[in-house]
């Protein structure tokens, strides 16, 4: 039995300790906003927060996060989280939408640590998330606009 916290709820999971966190979240806990895209930490669709840090759930064994606290797209309730989601919606960033949970989780992790990221910071933080619809122009714009919305009055880098 592995115990961990997902979106503030303690979960007791009777699973293979090697099961990637992604499948524990999706198939066992039943939260499906976190997506499978590659299984080898190449696409970022499975991005979740582990104690506030972005991690790729598809290559994180569930045993490695025992006792830890996980946040998924369904549990984004910080001001940064909701601001990023609202900005994504305002700019109509999404197309097919499949990667966007992961994009948003990466953007929230970035802005939580670095409230006013430069273009290079955005590139570095977001290049691990593939979007096959190539919505990158709007992702970049939304990260900047969310940063502005969170810190009005400060100049944009």
């Amino acid at each position, binding site marked *: 039995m592995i115990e961990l916290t997902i979106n503030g709820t303690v979960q007791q999971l009777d*699973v*293979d300790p090697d*099961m*990637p966190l992604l*499948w524990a979240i*999706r*198939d*066992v806990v*039943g*939260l*499906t*906003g*976190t*997506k*499978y*895209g*590659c*299984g*080898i930490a*190449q*696409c970022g*669709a499975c991005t979740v927060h582990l104690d506030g840090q972005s991690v790729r759930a598809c290559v994180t064994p569930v045993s490695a996060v025992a006792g830890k606290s996980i946040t*998924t*797209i*369904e549990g*984004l309730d910080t001001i940064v989280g909701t601001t990023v*989601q609202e900005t*994504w*919606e305002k700019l*109509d*960033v*999404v*197309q*097919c*939408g*499949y*990667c*966007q*949970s992961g994009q*948003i989780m990466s953007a929230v992790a970035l802005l939580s640590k670095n409230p006013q990221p430069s273009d290079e910071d*955005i*590139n*570095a933080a*977001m*290049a*691990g*998330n*593939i*979007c*096959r*619809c*190539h*919505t*990158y*122009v*709007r*992702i*970049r714009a939304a990260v900047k606009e969310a940063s502005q919305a969170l810190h009005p009055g400060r100049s944009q880098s």
Partner: protein
Amino acid sequence: MSRDDTMLPGRRRFLVATVTAGAGLTLGMCLGGCSREDKESAQAGPGKTGNRIISDAAFEPNAFVRITPDDRVTVIVKHLEMGQGTYTGIATLVAEELDAGWSQVDVEGAPADAARYNNLFWGKLQGTGGSTAIANSYEQMRKAGAAARAMLVAAAAKQWRVPPEEITVRDGVLRHAAKGIQASFGELAELAAQQPVPEDVFLKEPGEFRLIGTRVARKDSRAKVDGTAVFTQDMKLPGMLTALVAHPPRFGARVRSFDAVAARAVAGVHDVVEIPSGVAVLGKDFWSASKGRDALQVDWDESAAFMSGSDELMAQYQALADKPGKVARSEGDVSAALGSAAKTLRTSIAFPYLAHAALEPMNCVMQRSEGGVEIWNGEQYQTPDQNAVAKVFGIGPEKVKINMLYAGGSFGRRANPASDYVLETAHIVKAIGGKAPVKLVWTREDDMRAGYYRPMYYHRLEAGLDADGNPVAWQHRIVGQSIIADTAFEGALVKDGVDVTSVEGAANMPYAIPNIHVDLHSPQVPVPVQWWRSVGSTHTAFAVETFIDRLAAAAGRDPLALRRALLQDHPRHLGVMELAAENAGWGTPMAAGRGRGIAVHESFNTYVAQVAEVTVHDNKRFTVDRVVIAVDCGVAVNPDVIRAQMEGGMGFGLSAALSSALTLDAGRVVQSNFHDYLVVRLDQMPRVEVHIVKSAQPPTGVGEPATPVIAPAVANALSNATGQHFDRLPLTLSA
């Protein structure tokens, strides 16, 4: 896919209103006159998807619009939302003529039923593709909205005892100004349903549009930013098993035998079954099925397998290009014109296989239902999939109910002429005797290696210039597999041995050159191929647009000026080209090591020009810094969705221009995942500007036409910066 617009809907059309148990108005359209008897029989034909099951007590599914007493307007969309924005665009068409408020509009995916939800450009076939969704629906959906509006007005006129022409409608509210009365759609829905269905309706003039041509918010944004949007991958049914399939390592190989003892011993594995495409392992969840598949031992019979590699295939294609092919276009006398030309140029170009690599790998959920089958899928190709699945179970296609979910991308892949992954799911369900619902999940590796690629192509071009530098001869030979051969479209799209999708963009090349010859070889190769976003244009646009730049360079002319001279009879090409060039600052100086290139191309009746700016670093690496796009797609239904498709469609083509290639080595697919099948990431995405030509022409599609234009624009920009020319994709600079 077919873009035959000769099948545009006729104007004669009846609308059928039906009221059912609850209060509310449901409107559907019926081809031809629909008496009650006709309607019953229409519902019984192929494509009917279990009306009894789909409909709840209140409504019939034979409808495009539904209005309920709570003032919600539901638009039933017959096309797949795979990112291109069709749920938003089609709902806009209905809401415009209905005069609904945008915020009261909801969208619902239509069931599979070709009798009602066919693609009007494809005859009796329901499906999404070829950038046809808005184009084929433009009049149909507006009429659906207009008819609903007319019936609401009739209801208000009756209730208020006023002439209908004195009633105005706006944002879901009907008003009679003189009497000072008003009512909402919801309040009038029940009475509206009892009004006679108008036999014909008046549609707005473009000057009266309030939603069409403005930016309205996407209908799918919220669900896609909070994780609640349901994709096939997210489906869970009671007792459902997850299936992974061991596919053959080479195309054409088959199962000789397999040993499932170890696989069955994995905790959570329920079953292991052989199916025509391999061996399926079924588990209680993904992880158990995956571990089970890893433990499975399969002995493959490769006696009939395809064992060649990409290099050998390309060598065969090059040899084929020495011989004349099937003629796709012939004007004047190219041989003579080349013989007498003052200057001739030759080039050849090699294009690799490409995977669609939608971020949601292929998957499908299916279960046996009472006398039939029910499917949940990002469903792009309803009618062929219904027919294929029906055959597996020996049932009528009308017994195959399909629930159309969001697709996590497709780029053509989910409209598979062989219904490959859907059929695979059906075979698994059948093999386990229908005892449980099955979710087929392909891993990324399965998705990359199980086939259905943009074909590999080889092009050879030769052109002649006269003494004044005017192009006088153009010869273009294409070698590559036919996508259309052996599909349901073969009769319509293979003409005199020429697959029109292999030569589109080349055979109709727009430049005014007096002697033109285009021909085609379609070698048969057992590598499964399929349309890939913008189909033939993915390769022909590159060949034509880079070679035109070569001719301009050889003639000492500006590439824009030469195109302008040769496009005088093509005003829409000219229009987008000038718009893009002007906004890009064409002709202004560039710093050393930088370059600018232009390309213009029509596909699916939409015209796109792009100007790319590149920077070459250390003579070996380059970046694409800025892309200016101009598009003419007729009436711009939703300018922001058009911009999104231009940005994203261009980016999709940029991936192929910069890095994507799928190769075979001794019959095995070399690439397996995103570490070796490279695609553009955020740090490689250029700045993008989109300019839309104002137009009153009927709207044409925007999902695909931006894709083929970027590779030639970038190549031309690199030529401009370095003087190098490019004979293959993806693009690489020589040292």
